């Protein structure tokens, strides 16, 4: 049993971390809230006074708002579908007995460690460039007209780049989950003559449901705020302006801090809705 002495010591040891995170959360958050109610243009007169809910209304009614929400949802949704579906298949494949499993794992996981600016630039120039990119060569080889990927199929290209970065994450987590599956259960099903598809839908998929949920929630939080990939590829043009990128432009490019802060509050609310679900799952796990 913990003594009174060790309890107060414990509280003291926790204090620095708790205090720092409290400051980190409260100070910028309250500043954003404050700015969102001000007419604040640093380069055009500074703080011009109280604005009420003007910024909130203007942000939502601007012509860029709904497209940016759609873009955000499309990227997040697209990447989630690609990474989860391919991730499940890949995890099952990697779980099979084979030669050189360790090396294949290393190959598959590698994209996760590539910094976002590098992967975006490599894809943009060396693969998707309409003149010198590898895809252009491939298209020409098959007699097709090369595609200017990032302008003609901007969303698909972006989804592909981001999926490439996140597929290893999904695969690795799903593989970890598959490996904890009781192999006797699968063997029994196999002996009873259950075909592979039935085994997949009735045993493997239910077993993976929790891991899939975790993958979806964690990726959503990261994907809602992807930035570097857009920053170095399209700069938000060709219909790739996400909510994050729109706020970034409002705040730093057009220096309309009031408006951008109102957008920031919307982004925070959106992220918190997702976070709520994630916390439930993680919290349940703490009790177990």
């Amino acid at each position, binding site marked *: 049993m913990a003594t009174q002495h060790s309890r107060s010591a*414990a509280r003291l*040891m*926790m204090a620095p971390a708790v205090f720092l995170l409290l400051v980190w959360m409260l100070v910028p958050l309250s500043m954003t809230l404050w700015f969102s109610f001000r007419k604040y243009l640093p380069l055009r007169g500074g703080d011009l006074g109280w604005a009420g809910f003007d910024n909130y209304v203007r942000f939502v009614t601007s012509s860029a708002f709904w497209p940016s929400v759609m873009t955000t949802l499309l990227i997040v949704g697209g990447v989630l579908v690609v990474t989860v579906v391919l991730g499940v298949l890949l995890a099952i494949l990697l779980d099979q007995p084979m030669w050189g499993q360790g090396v294949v794992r290393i190959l598959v996981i590698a994209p996760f460690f590539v*910094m976002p600016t590098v992967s975006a630039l490599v894809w943009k120039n*060396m693969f998707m460039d309409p003149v010198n990119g590898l895809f252009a*060569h491939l298209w020409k080889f098959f007699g097709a007209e090369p595609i200017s990927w990032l302008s003609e199929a901007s969303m698909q290209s972006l989804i592909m780049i981001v999926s490439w970065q996140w597929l290893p994450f999904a695969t690795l987590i799903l593989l*970890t989950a598959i490996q904890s599956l009781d*192999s006797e259960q699968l063997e029994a099903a196999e002996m009873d003559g259950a075909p592979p598809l039935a085994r997949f839908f009735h045993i493997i998929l239910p077993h993976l449901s929790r891991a899939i949920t975790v993958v979806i929630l964690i990726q959503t939080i990261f994907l809602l705020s992807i930035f570097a990939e857009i920053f170095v590829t399209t700069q938000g043009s060709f219909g790739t302006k996400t909510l*994050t990128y729109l706020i970034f432009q409002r705040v730093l490019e057009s220096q309309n801090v009031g408006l951008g802060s109102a957008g920031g509050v919307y982004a925070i609310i959106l*992220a918190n809705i997702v976070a709520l679900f994630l916390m439930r799952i993680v919290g349940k796990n703490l009790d177990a």
Partner: protein
Amino acid sequence: MARAVTTQRKAINTTLAWAVGLLIFFPILWTILTSFKTEAQAISDPPVFLFFDWTLENYAVVQERSDYMRFLWNSVIIAGGSTILGTIIAIPAAWSMAFVPSRRTKDILLWMLSTKMLPAVGVLYPIYLLFIKLGWLDSRIGLVIVLMLINLPIIVWMLYTYFREIPGEILEAARMDGASLREEILYVLTPMAVPGIASTILLNIILAWNEAFWTLNLTAAKAAPLTAFIASYSSPEGLFYAKLSAASVMAIAPILIMGWFSQKQLVRGLTFGAVK
């Protein structure tokens, strides 16, 4: 009894898995190959794969023209500094939550996690403004502190899940034998916790190394790490594929190698212990 697997089936699995693995790895492989080509060979039509005149010239040019070492050093300081600082602050917190849990421990842990969910763009201007006021814009100290705060929840969580696996009976036994709190931590806990601490540090160096929101928005020339160094290649220099590739390889090589060593810890760290 283990499932009997025919050699034939194993061969099919192997072929398929290697094909998929190489396909996924291909962009990295292609970048590595291109970095050893001349600019002309890099854009040659049809593309050349292995049979070109291998050259190291691009690496020399990149280093010379853009002072690669300075960016590398910034990355090392920022990623290493923020991780070490974060670990020093997180160890006592995680220790106390794992071994002296109270009713509120769970709430505190979840609250810490929730700070991680705060979208960076939502607080971009306040941080930008505070950085100007503090004179931290384009300084390494500023980024060390911001990245430390961003990763602190992950560090606390990872350490907590590792510490929780250390059996409490051992600590009780040490206490019975009259060990003080300090001795308990120093001689009993630390040796058992070292592997967990090491993998926590490894994963967080990787995360900090690749962080590309704050490093792009809060640096200019002086404190810019490799993420910003590469972003500067986005136009017109990006047209020089061989040099872009050499720069990319230099930016990702150190972390790729570290990453391969940390792949087992990755799952635990990034799912906050929800999947082990």
